[in-house]
């Protein structure tokens, strides 16, 4: 393919050369010039033409390429075209002006070489020289004709009489012997000899010839020869006028076109130097856009384009690194997410996440099994739909409490009935915040049914044990007294009467103690129902505190909040609770010390807190657990029911009593009850 193209090029060059030769030969009319000169001129001309065509070929190729680029709208074609046009125009204008001016000058110059003013003197000189010789010849001839008449020529003329033809005779001499007169010029070393020959007739008979000769000295003949030479050279030169002119013009034209083409070529090169990297950049950009980041534009240029390419390569590398790190971060976060999901699915606590609209975002396995709901049935449902599946008064109250309210967290135990399953849950609800934005609600709950059952069992075991203890204690004195009586009776002791009285008193006393015990217990089991009314808490506190004014060593400080919302509670029962706690406190401080009462309201979570703190010795850890059990008492004369009853009353108010240590010593009882049912 390539060789074929090469051959075609060579063939066309050859054909062009031959055509050119022909055309040139035809137009240049170099008839009078020697072959060698002709060849030189032709070769020069053709080299010029070949160079021209080669240049045209390459430039044409570039231009065709540009044209194709334009047609296909390859990136950068506008810039290339612009650059080419600008540079070509910029060079074409001065080059063509230069061409026109130069060609004019050259034509003018060459024309001037052959101007008529120059030729005329030459022509005239030649004419003069010719005329001079003709004149000399004529004069010699005239003189020779006069010789037979007896005249002797004057001057430097020599006259000879020849009767026969000399051996070295000239044509003119021989012609004279045949009766024909003539003159001739004979060039000699020292000059020219003018010879006239006429026949000598004697009565119509040729006797011989008369030869008259004059001598023109070398000084004159050399000049004549010079004039002749100059004239001939001039004529030759004039015949070269057209080829020289053509040659000059061709060279000029070639230079002009060379300049223009160079400009074109440079423009294309420069444009290419800019657009090629841009093209490869554009291609690379497309690749990058398509997602291939393993790309590197190769360009070893140290200019701005090189800088651009380097920046691009750097950018792609950064992009790749960024993408990779993003990918690894994604994998890491995905792994963590899976890990978290795994944890959430495998923990025993139920976890539900709600979005800001209250829809279920996530529900874990434990949650669905505790609530007896299929996860798909709960996902993306509103929590109210979820609520309708679970029957729970406690949960509904809890939701009413927190609905549309800002809160940090809330923890509550609620009973639920999901389908045929009944359970007790400890629910923990927390609002989730992302720095400042509220993003949802986290609900965590545990099924504590079994724990509550076990706790109840333990509590009742403890109660049973305590009741047994409380009953066995009075039984011992009764039994011992009775046995003693029998013993004394059998031994008929003298002090029997006295012992009888004492023993029976003991028995009666202990039996009464037993009765009281049973009464308390039945009272505990049959507590009056609470009747809640909106109550002014500070007033209740004041009433209770007034009851303890009689204790001389006891100082009671009351701290009340500014706001005073009415609280839904049973005033009488609440007073009983406070009295029970106060009794404990007074006992703890052994009638001497400080009792601090502090009431405050947390309106956002709808809870009233009442702290009753003493500065007594504090509670033992193991007693804290048992504090609210029935029949637990640290007091000798206590029934162990006071705090149990208080706890029950507060529980009926849907509240809690909590106990904690006071710093540095003492105990704080905190009563928490809801302010109102909203």
């Amino acid at each position, binding site marked *: 393919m390539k060789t074929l193209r090469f051959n075609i090029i060579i063939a066309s060059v050859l054909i062009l050369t031959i055509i050119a030769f022909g055309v040139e030969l035809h137009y240049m009319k170099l008839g009078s010039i020697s072959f060698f000169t002709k060849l030189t001129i032709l070769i020069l001309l053709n080299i010029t033409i070949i160079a021209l065509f080669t240049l045209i070929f390459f430039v044409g190729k570039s231009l065709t390429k540009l044209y194709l680029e334009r047609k296909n709208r390859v990136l950068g074609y506008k810039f290339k075209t612009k650059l080419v046009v600008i540079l070509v125009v910029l060079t074409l204008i001065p080059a063509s002006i230069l061409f026109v001016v130069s060609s004019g000058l050259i034509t003018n110059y060459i024309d001037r070489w052959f101007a008529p003013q120059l030729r005329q003197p030459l022509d005239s000189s030649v004419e003069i020289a010719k005329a001079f010789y003709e004149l000399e010849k004529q004069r010699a001839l005239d003189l020779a004709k006069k010789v037979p008449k007896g005249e002797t020529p004057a001057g430097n003329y020599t006259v000879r009489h020849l009767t026969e033809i000399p051996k070295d005779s000239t044509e003119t001499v021989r012609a004279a012997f045949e009766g024909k007169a003539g003159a001739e010029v004979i060039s000699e070393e020292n000059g020219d000899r003018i010879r006239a020959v006429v026949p000598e007739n004697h009565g119509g008979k040729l006797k011989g010839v008369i030869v008259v000769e004059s001598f023109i000295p070398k000084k004159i003949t050399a000049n004549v020869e010079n004039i002749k030479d100059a004239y001939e050279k001039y004529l030759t030169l004039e015949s070269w006028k057209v080829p020289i002119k053509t040659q000059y013009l061709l060279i000029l034209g070639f230079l002009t076109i060379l300049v223009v083409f160079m400009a074109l070529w440079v423009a294309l090169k420069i444009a290419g130097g800019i657009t090629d990297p841009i093209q490869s950049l554009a291609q690379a950009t497309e690749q990058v856009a398509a997602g291939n980041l393993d790309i590197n534009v190769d360009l070893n240029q140290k200019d701005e384009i090189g800088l651009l390419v380097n920046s691009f390569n750097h950018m792609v590398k950064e992009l790749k690194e960024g993408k990779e790190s993003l990918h690894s971060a994604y994998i890491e976060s995905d792994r963590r997410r899976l890990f978290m999901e795994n944890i959430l699915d495998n923990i025993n606590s139920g976890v539900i996440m709600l979005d800001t609209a209250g829809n279920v975002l996530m529900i874990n396995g434990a949650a669905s099994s505790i609530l007896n709901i299929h996860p798909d049935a709960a996902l993306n449902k509103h929590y109210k739909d979820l609520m309708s599946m679970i029957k729970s008064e406690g949960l509904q109250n809890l939701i009413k409490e927190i609905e549309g309210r800002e809160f940090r967290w809330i923890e509550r135990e609620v009973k639920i009935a999901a389908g045929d399953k009944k359970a007790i849950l400890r629910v923990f609800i927390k609002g989730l915040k992302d720095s400042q934005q509220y993003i949802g609600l986290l609900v965590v709950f545990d099924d504590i049914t079994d724990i509550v059952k076990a706790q109840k069992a333990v509590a009742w075991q403890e109660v049973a044990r305590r009741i047994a203890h409380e009953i066995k*204690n009075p039984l*011992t*004195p009764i*039994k*011992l007294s009775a*046995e*003693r009586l029998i013993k004394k009776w059998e031994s008929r002791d003298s002090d029997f009467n006295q*012992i009888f009285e004492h023993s029976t008193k*003991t028995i009666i006393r202990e039996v009464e103690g037993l009765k009281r015990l049973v009464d308390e217990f039945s009272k505990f089991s049959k507590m009056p129902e609470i009747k809640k009314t909106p109550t002014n808490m500070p007033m209740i506190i004041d009433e209770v505190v007034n009851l303890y004014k009689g204790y001389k060593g006891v100082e009671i400080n009351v701290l009340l909040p500014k706001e005073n919302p009415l609280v839904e509670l049973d005033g009488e029962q609440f007073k009983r609770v406070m009295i029970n706690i106060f009794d404990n406190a007074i006992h703890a401080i052994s009638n001497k010390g400080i009792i601090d009462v502090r009431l405050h309201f947390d309106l956002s979570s709808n809870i009233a807190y009442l702290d009753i703190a003493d500065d007594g010795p504090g509670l033992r850890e193991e007693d804290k657990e048992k504090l609210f059990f029935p029949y637990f008492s*640290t007091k000798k004369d206590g029934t162990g029911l006071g705090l149990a009853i208080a706890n029950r009353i507060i529980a009926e108010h849907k509240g809690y009593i909590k106990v904690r240590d006071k710093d540095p010593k003492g105990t704080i009882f905190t009563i928490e009850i809801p302010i109102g049912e909203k």
Partner: protein
Amino acid sequence: MAEPIVLIVDDEGSIRESLSEIFKDEGYYVLTSSSGEEAIETVKEQSPDLIFLDIWLSGIDGIQTLEEIKGLKPDLPIIMISGHGNIELAVKATRIGAYDFLEKPLSLERVLLAAKRALEKQALETEYKALKQDLTKRFRLIGSSQKMTILKEQIDMAAQSNSRVLIMGESGSGKELVARFLCTIPS
């Protein structure tokens, strides 16, 4: 023998009272304490011969009180009384060194019997110790001559070893004395 001293420890006044009366009837000298702390003080000051100790006390409980008293007087017999018979607690108390474990409601017969036995055992132990003391006093090697010193050293060596010992000597030279002495040395 002087009248025995019995200490009754219980936080229930009526129990203390009824027990006191019974023991007084039987000719005991009775001390009472309502708490463990008080009981420990009483033991230190009055050295009772016998203690009735309730397990369930306010303040430090019965078991702890038992431990402390045993620390003070290891030989003092202590009878535990409890409102709720619980084998674990009984075993624990016995291991610490309680002599007996009685369950409420207490019976007069059982209380007196336990007290009697405890005191008898205590008396026997005391007697045994006295006799043992006597015995060691009777079989003593006296003298500090070189020969006696060598003999004592040899007896010592024999006592340390686990082998059989043959004691040889003429009749009346004191073979039996050496043998008894050998037995008194703890190996």
